[in-house]
């Protein structure tokens, strides 16, 4: 029971101190909004009709950018200010502490993912979307992206280093995960890389949920994302114990 009190308060503190700050919320709104506007400017007539087609990509992008950078930056920031030591010195297991830290980022990612959907609801008909599948997809993408952010945080000493590493992973994923360019349309030599990226599987579920155009089995997508999450979680725990408890 005691560990739950600690878990809940770490989560609450992170949400209040980092995730509910106006710059972070505005980042989550401005980013998808600007992409949607860009689409309208490019093809004004097709804009509304294509909004639904764009939605899986925008939602995935919001999750990816929201979660990876947030956790990587906040943890590196806390490490540098030594406030993170307070968590390491508390009598809660490192697993519980890591779960509390990632929960905030996962929640943030889920909320950010549905902001584009909320905006799209004003300009296009969103009926026929499988919201249950969409939520599962967003949740799994949030978890894997958050853990990727944590893996970056564990490997970084400075905030700028964490940001650089985040971009190193995020930008290739933008173009190779089927967000805006279908994987089949990519050059053949890039396609195997696409299947190594966790976001590919999240986008595939979202495509199935929103536009019914997924290319793989949804259960397979889910299993791959769960598997990657477990691997990343174990890697982060091992690395935290190795790097942060000197």
């Amino acid at each position, binding site marked *: 029971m005691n560990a739950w009190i*600690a878990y809940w308060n770490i989560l609450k*503190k992170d949400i209040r101190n980092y995730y509910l700050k106006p710059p972070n919320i505005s980042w989550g709104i401005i980013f998808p909004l600007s992409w949607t506007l860009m689409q309208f400017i490019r093809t004004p007539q097709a804009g509304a009709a294509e909004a639904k087609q764009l939605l899986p990509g925008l939602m995935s992008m919001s999750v990816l950018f929201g979660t990876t950078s947030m956790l990587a930056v906040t943890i590196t920031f806390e490490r540098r200010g030594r*406030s993170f*030591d307070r*968590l390491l*010195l*508390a*009598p*809660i297991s490192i697993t519980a502490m890591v779960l509390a830290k990632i929960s905030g980022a996962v929640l943030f990612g889920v909320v950010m993912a549905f902001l584009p959907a909320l905006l799209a609801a004003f300009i296009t008909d969103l009926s026929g979307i499988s919201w249950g599948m969409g939520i599962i997809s967003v949740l799994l993408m949030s978890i894997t992206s958050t853990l990727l952010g944590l893996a970056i945080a564990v490997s970084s000493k400075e905030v700028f280093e964490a940001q650089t590493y985040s971009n190193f992973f995020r930008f290739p994923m933008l173009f190779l995960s089927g967000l805006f360019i279908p994987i089949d349309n990519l050059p053949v030599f890039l396609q195997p890389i696409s299947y190594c990226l966790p976001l590919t599987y999240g986008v595939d579920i979202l495509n199935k949920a929103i536009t019914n155009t997924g290319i793989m089995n949804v259960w397979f997508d889910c299993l791959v994302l769960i598997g990657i999450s477990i691997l990343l979680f174990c890697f982060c725990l091992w690395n935290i114990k190795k790097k942060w408890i*000197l």
Partner: protein
Amino acid sequence: MLKIIPSKQNLPAKDRKTKNGERFIMSIISVTGLKKAYGAIIAVDGISLDIEKGQIFGLLGPNGAGKTTTINMLTGLARPTAGKIFVDGIDGIKNIKKVQRIIGIVPDESNLYDEMDGFDNLCFCASLYGIKKAEREKRANKLLEIFGLKNTGKRPFRAYSKGMRRKLTIAAGIIHHPEILFLDEPTTGIDVESARQIRSLILDMKRQGTTVFLTTHYIEEAERLCDTVAFIVDGKIIKKGTIDELMENEGNEHILKLTLEGSVNGIISDLQLNFPNFRIKPGGNNSCFISSVERPSLLPILQYLDKKGISVYEAREIRPSLEDVFVKVTGIEAAELKREKEGVRK
């Protein structure tokens, strides 16, 4: 005969006597052969310590001597390369999370959250120990009052002065009522008044039964607060004991200071000739120092000076300070130690 033995959880933490009448005192922290190496660099080199329950223990040493590394190993922030740690009978290497339940840590630099106010910082720290909301709010309010921070409890931590930050960090370290408190340089770089309040709080904690493990470079502070101290240099404990033991064993020279009515010029060599067993040196302002391994007897000296018609204004025995012992044992000047630390902070 007094011996300190490591405590075991199944033994009561109080004085015990053996059949042959030896008195044992339970040690709450027991460290044996503790070593920490970072590659080829050895930060702590096989130290052994036993700290008695309810005492204030001071670890003194220059920068880079291994004080903070020792604290980090005892509290779970660093993994020892070799050695054993027992805290209140709990294996501090295998069960560090159990140890962390009964210890409080105040690092050398405040590590609270800048974005949160004083009250929220304290409540958050209490929550990490599983304390429920009503209780943690009650404790936070009480501590803010004790530490004189009641009026600034709603101010963000970043707006606190250095002394206030230090006090709040100490409050955060004790909000869960730890049995042992680790304080790393608690008064370094803060104003005189705050330092005085912190020293007084440390003594209060001792009176309430908390064991305090303190590192400081202010030797006079250690002398005033600590029951036992250890000197650490280059990762090795080179001397340890109670303040009295260290003074008695190391400060083994008795010094007498005489202040005369007139000038001491010419009298020093005369005194030295007549009292060859003593070492006599001139001091400032018509004074001289008479030192010897045996306690100097004052009467013959006073009689001799009286015969010469020299009046003695004051005669005083000078007790060696812990600083004298530290300098003698380590060869490091205390002032140099202080300068070094302050310089690093700047």
